[in-house]
């Protein structure tokens, strides 16, 4: 995972996840739902990530676990990049 990807994900989180805590205080494996992200906010997050990274999450990735941490989101974005033939 590149540092830019991590920064970009954190930026989207800050804008769309409606977290009651500062994103910078969360580690990459911190559970975002435990940190206060609602189910509705996770949908907004998913759509905003698609926008920011110009990707589309396949149906099988539209689950809670894919969006539960910065690490999990990074893994999903990397996987899509590999499938699209781009370097992650």
């Amino acid at each position, binding site marked *: 995972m590149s540092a830019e990807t991590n920064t970009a994900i954190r930026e989207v989180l800050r804008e769309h996840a409606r977290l009651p805590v500062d994103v910078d205080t969360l580690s990459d494996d911190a559970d975002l739902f435990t940190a206060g992200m*609602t*189910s*509705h906010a*996770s*949908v*907004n997050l*998913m*759509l905003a990530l698609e926008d920011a990274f110009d990707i589309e*999450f396949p*149906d099988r990735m*539209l*689950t*809670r676990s894919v*969006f539960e941490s910065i690490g999990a989101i990074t893994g999903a974005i990397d996987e899509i990049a590999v499938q699209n033939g781009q370097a992650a």
Partner: protein
Amino acid sequence: MTEVLPASTDQAEFAAELFEREILIESGVPGLYGRGAVFEQIRTGFDALVTKAAAPEGPETLRFPPLLPRRQLESSGYLHSFPHLAGSVFGFEGSEEDALAQDTCASAHEDWSEYQTMSELALVPAACYPVYPAVARRGAVPSGGFFVDAGGAWVFRHEPSEDPARMQTFHQRELVRIGSPDEVLEWRDTWRERGLGLLRGLGLAADVDRAADPFFGRGGRMLAANQRKQELKYELLVQIAGPEPTAVTSFNYHQEHFAQKYGLVLEDGSTAHTACLGFGQERITLALLRTHGFEPSSWPEEVRRELWPS
């Protein structure tokens, strides 16, 4: 125009027979029907059966009209999850000239929406929605929580269908529990078994299954997957007509969703949890007609006794 979901062959045959016997009365709009005497006899019999089943726990009776303040719908999250099912009320606020133009358009059955202005009202999408703000007004939820019997309330879903079991407006026989997480979950599980017993006691081959709401769009897939994984929704299913069994009752555990929106807190300051159950009265009535025949006078005696004890 909204797309109308077509009926399967057996659904169409079932609907034709219901109309022929005036058990349901056609309006020209799929999913909008009048109810004949036979239908109402069954529906109200079931309504009373639920009242009786809940009575030992002493629920509090609250009743609400089929309209909701629009602001309440806006802040409920419904338009995020189900924008395709919501209905809002518009009204005319124009001049005399506008009224004439509107009438000319309307008389020709053309689009007259440009003369309409959004009102402060929306249609109730689920019978439990008015309950939470009503109870939240009272302040902290007392020890033991609340158990509300919200009656058989009219609700609206914008989903025209030729399947007679998928109506656009129907009665949800609604019970609501508000309290601590443990109280609410235990209530939901108890009523899931009790509801199953009620339906089986009426000779319906009902089963229980984990379920998800028909959330909108790709984001909705996420919400649905989440709902299933967390076992937040269960349904009772009965074969009525069509390729699959129909959900006739749902049990919904909202966790903190509604409590957070309306500030429902327990005495210790923590956020309350809520759950509700809704018996779909029309679907249960149709399931009974499908299972036992179109003439209740010839239904099995034990079923008649349950519905119409005298």
